[in-house]
């Protein structure tokens, strides 16, 4: 095994230890670049629309990975036909939780802001080189590495986070009972496959995508593919064009490489990417 692996393994042991003490921790795998800085990773997810063929491997991979019940989708793809024959176009738009940064004022995504069970306990995120970063847990919360997560055990099943998300990225998990109210269901959403990422493996949909249209990585690592793509396509500077619903000011960490302007064309056609739309993957 390489030196990196050994390093990661040591960190994992530490991470586990920290957990045992009562603090949730990010068992972040590391590269040397991150190690040198001692920061938490800054996870970003890029969908390259040049590559997406609307095949739905992501949708099904996610269903299998998370055993998501029928009617709920943590990952979904939208199809939209635009234009007039014979100049017709069809666009595909993969959707998942944006893992929003939250607005500049408070840095809290709307779903977390509306959660009555946030903030709760104090936690520590341990960076790969052992630096401790403090943050607050809750029924839904954001880790210092940017993952927007939830804990069913703390959840009252109030559904406020579902309503708060302007994208409709959260839904009820109808086979899950909420931790604090046995009369209510729990919620489901994309977790960036935290259980995989913390073990050094990309999210399932990223791994499974046959076209490499989904790219996940650490923006704090200048050598990561996401860093390179963000630079190449100016994704951070052009959030208004490369992310969904920029006016909501949620600052998504999900970016689209979209040279054909699919986001705009789809929005103009029908899809508004808003919560009122059912979050359902349908081929029509």
């Amino acid at each position, binding site marked *: 095994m390489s030196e990196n692996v050994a390093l990661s393994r040591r960190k994992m042991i530490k991470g586990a230890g920290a957990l045992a003490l009562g603090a949730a921790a990010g068992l972040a795998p590391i590269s040397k670049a991150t190690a040198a800085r001692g920061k938490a990773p800054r996870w970003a997810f890029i969908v390259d629309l040049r590559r997406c063929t609307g095949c739905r491997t992501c949708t099904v991979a996610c269903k299998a990975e998370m055993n998501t019940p029928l009617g709920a989708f943590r990952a979904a793809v939208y199809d939209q036909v635009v234009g007039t024959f014979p100049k017709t176009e069809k666009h595909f738009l993969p959707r998942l939780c944006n893992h929003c940064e939250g607005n500049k004022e408070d840095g809290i995504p709307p779903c977390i802001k509306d959660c009555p069970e946030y903030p709760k306990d104090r936690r520590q995120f341990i960076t790969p080189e052992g630096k401790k970063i403090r943050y607050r847990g809750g029924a839904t919360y954001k880790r210092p590495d940017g993952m927007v997560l939830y*804990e069913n055990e*703390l959840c009252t099943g109030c559904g406020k986070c579902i309503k708060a998300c302007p994208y409709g990225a959260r839904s009820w998990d109808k086979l899950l009972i909420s931790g604090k109210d046995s009369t209510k269901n729990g919620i489901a959403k994309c977790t960036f496959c935290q259980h995989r990422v913390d073990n050094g493996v990309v999210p399932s949909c990223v791994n499974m995508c046959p076209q490499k249209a989904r790219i996940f990585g650490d923006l704090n690592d200048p050598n990561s593919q996401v860093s390179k793509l963000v630079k190449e396509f100016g994704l951070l500077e052009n959030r208004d064009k490369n992310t969904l619903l920029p006016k909501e000011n949620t600052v998504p960490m999900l970016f689209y490489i979209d040279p054909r302007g699919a986001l705009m064309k789809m929005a103009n056609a029908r899809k508004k990417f808003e919560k009122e739309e059912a979050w359902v993957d349908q081929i029509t």
Partner: protein
Amino acid sequence: MKRDISRRDLIKLGAASAAVMATGKVGGSSALAGTVDLAAGGKDFSPQTGAERKMIPSACWSCVTRDSMIGFVEDGRLVKLEGNPNSIRGRGKICSKGASGINQLYDPDRILYPMKRVGKRGEGKWKRISWDEALTDLAARLKKLRDEGHPEKFMFHYGRMKASSSKIIKSVFLANYGTKTIGNHTSICEGAKWTAQELTWGKHYDNWDFDNTKFVLNFGSGVLEAHTNHIPTCQRLGDAMVDRGVKMYTFDVRLSNTAAKSTEWLPVKPGTDGAIALAMCNVIMQAGLYDKEFFKFIRATKDPNASTAAKVAALKSHLAQYTPEWAEKVSTVPAAKIKSLALEFAKTKPACVISYRGAVAHYHGADTERAVQMLAAITGNIDNPGGRCRAVGAKWKYPKGPKKKPKAKALKIAQGFPGTIAYPTHGANHQVLKMIKDGRAGRPEVYMWYCYTPVYANGECQENIDILKDESLIPFTVCVNAYYDESAALADMILPNPSYLEWWDYEDMVSPTQVPEYYIRQPLVKPLGESRDFKDVVCDLANRMGFPLGFNSAEEFVKMSCEKTPAVKAAGGFEYMKKHGVYHDPKAKPKYYGYKKAVKPDALKKDGVIFDKATGVYWNWHKSKAKSEAEAKEKGYTKTKNAYKGYIGQEIGGKVYAGFKPDKVNKSGYFEVYSELLEMKKFPALPSYVPIPEHKKMSANDLILTTYKVPVHIHSRSANCKWLTEIYHDNPAMINTRTAKRLGIKDGDKIKVKSEAGEITTTANVTEAVVPGVVAISHHVGHWEYGRYASGKKSPLAAGDDSDFKLKWWTKKGVHPNWIIPNKPDPISGQQRWMDTVVKVRKA
């Protein structure tokens, strides 16, 4: 402090990770790896419980692509399927259908016990019987036919049966039993392609070398969503287009996902792709952009020894009639576009022309494929890096069973009615039930089908039902299946096969890299219930009938094959394959230009090898049906039955080359643009455009019905996979906005679609994504059996349950188009003419 499950599990997870790293591939610029790497001792854990999962390499079987994959097993239950990163074919990827394989395994409607009909055939009344009772009954019936000297009255009809499954069941079991009354499903797939390829370059299957190509022309293939080598090719094409800026132009009647991702979608009238390909050939020949070098290997005239100049002149003269302006009138594709694409295709080296059912599932579809082959040949894009290559797959050695085999007999019902099809080299199996009804070629006493659904997969569903139901036509029907589909409902006996995730195979599907990959399928879990791999069952049946096959299970057969196959044996044999799933020779070079190889003089001196002057072919008459050398010489290579089996090489300009070795027909070793074999059957010798007769007689308001596939379904076997059917469960008929307006139809209207074969009622999807004058209805859905997710009703033999079912939120189930598509063969190949049906559409 209260702790929740996920946090507790994180602890476990962390601890487990400490023991063994999740992946072997850490390092480089990004520390994150993809698929957990089996070879490096990777691990995977449950997101819910943190439990470590067992990883077993195997192979998919959702479609014929048969990707290598890894099954993740937790507490004896398969929980996830991912691609095998060590496969050179799939590069760690599988598709949505592959990933939903778990739904195939844990299908709550699965048949888990042998069943015997108790009511009338098709009434849906069943009795569970033991395997011993089932096989005692079946063996007695089969043995009786065999003992009476009529083994051919046992008809075996398969849909998907490849590699070791085909060898065990067909080459060993059925051969030793003595029946050659064997049907397949190729004519309802892409048979016209294969016949055309056999007539031009010999063996069927074309690999598209996207890794090296610089330009792609696509005639009717959904290569990015539904190809027969889907995952290996689609990802390479995606790379070519995005990383290297390779352009792809797609001719299709519908804006498929592939067309949508193409540089340009070129809408085309159904059945006219051949006209475009011919016009392109014309443009290229007239512009002098043909590949002189390759012309040496082309046969373009009756005279096999014609000079390149004579061949060029012959093609120029034949093609002159096919001007781009003419093709525009036929196809609606602008002449200027045809011209510019032809020139770009000819000038960009290498370029790859691809084709599939959209182009070939027509009257004279084989001619369209020949035109496409010609387009590749005249530009030298044959068997070259970046072009259209002859397929390369693993060559397994296997135990062949008893040395002495009976002389097998056949009812002539799998190749279509006599005189209707010139070269049904892959059968005309949509004609089987019609021929059984007709009776003149005899009828099977026992009709058994395996991974096949004669009722649903062919056209004219009602006729299929009526014939299968009629006990006077077929006395005994046996269905081998895991699922209660529309055909299983008409069986007298059902033998419960497991899903492919519970059985053994060696595998050999075509490699996109031109380097063969050996791989295996192994059970990820034990077969559920009493389901039993049919390959094991035939060993049992053979023993019961007194002709042991020399192995007693598929596992044993695969093991023996691993030891017999030198490359696999050297790698570590069966144990290696079980551990890694895949093997390829890391030193192997990609196979290109095989036709250029010189034949060694010794090979020409062997006993029985003679020279055929008429074709320039050296061949060994002993391997043909000729009784003597004199007879062989008198009849000649072309007209001696099975002469192609003795093919040695092709003489061209005084040298003998390996050439384009024939398979199934007596073509020469040239790349035969000119086909003497077709001429003998009174078809044009050079690829030609022959209009579809029914389309010439259409009235103003008639439409042409075409079918298609979506990315999330297998043709007919995935509708009960809940994760797929949740995404796609309804198939409203696509009609262009202008056409709909003319017919007074609005989006969402109930409509009736009527053909000569029948009428269906469905819904209109009024759209800009299909050409005017066409109604496009997908396959996959519209089931009336198969189970709760497919048809809305539980199968009468359902052995399981699924808590998800109460969350099924959709009620639509689509309408199957095959009810109204007549079973009509292409007269050259026998291909089912899926895309030719003329229909009337009106508001219901």
